């Protein structure tokens, strides 16, 4: 099973993966040792920087008794001009499953077409990031008790932010009402808005954060990504445009969740960290059980009903 975009999973499959992740929590926390993936090798192919995604995939594999190969552009033949196709031919022989992050959009689908082993997209340019979406859904279910019919505000860089591309798609399928808050130059790509609307999702677009958060179940903040701007001056115009501080949360719902794929720059003030609204660090941990569930699924490994 490849996971390139959320289109590769039905709603039922996504829910079933979240249930698997729930059962795997004791292993993810290190409380139980169960080497379900012993003898299996994961190739972590990061052609672009990553902290949480790479490390949580590595932790997920190791907690399940598997091995991890790490490739980065530095020190590999990629720097010598090797094509992605050729690199993937090697990986096909060295690993049982591969995770790929690449600066070019479409790279994960391309890699999947080039090999036999299952491929998971860990971010392709400004494209998709579906494994992040699964951990986001897992986190939302923990905070709200459900993932369907929620009122979700997506904030910041919706144009280049691949996490919100995949997440909005999934939330739309689960009947969310979405408010897309971004400055004009960073609006959600029109083909994504079109897809959301044609799937029956209620979508509103706005440049103003304050009025959107009062009735929100989830406020999903994102970083304005300096590295995706062709021009520094364009970046400076929109950097720091949306910030949340504890004092901004006086009129929000008591169970409103603030999420962020991290790293944050100044979108969420540290004064929020100690409030019940702060979910972003739990969210980062949730990458481990959800990626465990994905690894087991892609390798065809059954997860025991009860893990104690």
């Amino acid at each position: 099973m490849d996971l390139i975009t959320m289109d590769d999973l039905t709603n039922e499959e996504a829910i079933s993966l979240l249930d698997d992740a729930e059962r795997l929590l004791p292993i993810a926390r290190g409380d139980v040792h169960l080497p379900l993936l012993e003898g299996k090798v994961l190739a972590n192919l990061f052609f672009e920087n990553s902290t949480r995604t790479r490390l949580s995939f590595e932790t997920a594999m190791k907690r399940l008794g598997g091995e991890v190969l790490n490739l980065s552009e530095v020190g590999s033949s990629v720097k010598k001009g090797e094509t992605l196709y050729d690199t993937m031919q090697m990986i096909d022989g060295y690993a049982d499953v591969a995770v790929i992050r690449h600066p070019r959009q479409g790279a994960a689908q391309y890699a999947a077409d080039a090999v036999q082993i299952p491929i998971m997209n860990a971010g392709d340019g400004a494209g998709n990031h579906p494994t992040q979406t699964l951990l986001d859904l897992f986190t939302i279910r923990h905070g709200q008790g459900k993932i369907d019919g929620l009122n979700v505000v997506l904030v910041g860089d919706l144009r280049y932010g691949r996490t919100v591309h995949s997440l909005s798609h999934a939330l739309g399928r689960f009947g969310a009402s979405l408010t897309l808050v971004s400055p004009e130059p960073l609006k959600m790509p029109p083909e994504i808005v079109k897809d959301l609307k044609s799937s029956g999702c209620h979508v509103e677009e706005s440049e103003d954060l304050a009025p959107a958060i009062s009735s929100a179940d989830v406020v999903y903040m994102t970083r304005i990504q300096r590295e995706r701007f062709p021009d520094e001056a364009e970046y400076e115009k929109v950097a720091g445009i949306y910030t949340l501080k504890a004092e901004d949360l006086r009129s929000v719902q008591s169970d409103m969740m603030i999420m962020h794929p991290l790293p944050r720059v100044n979108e969420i003030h540290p004064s929020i960290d100690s409030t019940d609204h702060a979910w972003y660090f739990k969210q980062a941990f949730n990458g481990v059980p959800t990626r465990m569930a994905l690894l087991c699924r892609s390798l065809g490994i059954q997860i025991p009903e009860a893990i104690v």
Partner: protein
Amino acid sequence: MSEMRRVSAICNGTVIDHIPSGSAVQVMRMLHIDGSHSNPISLVMNVPSGKVGRKDVLKIEDRELSQEELDRLALIAPSASIAIIRNYGVAEKRQIELGSELVNIARCSFFNCITQNPNEPLPHRLQVVSQDPLEIRCAYCGRAQSLAEIIESLI
């Protein structure tokens, strides 16, 4: 005046009729006919037509276009009629059809798509998401491609 009097009948080859007015040059590009090293070509543009108002017609002598070549035309001339001519007579009429995917017909036009690296060997694949209205996206990066962009990026 009919187009038959503007250019003479051909003995053998392919006639592409009912091309949308003004599109015949694009049709030639799609068929890799550049006019300099090809068979004799007759090109008629903007002639009145009872069926479509005005139309273009292209006659290619001594070359029978394959179905695969003709299917490329579905992008810009979906209602064109095709006749294969042998010995001054219509030997075959062919329909053109836009399939679900265009393989190695045009490159994705998005500057950051993985397929922009000319050394990457896998085929260029554009998916036809919808025929009416026409909506085409790159099978790899998912970006929507306008017809003008596809014509600019023909292989």
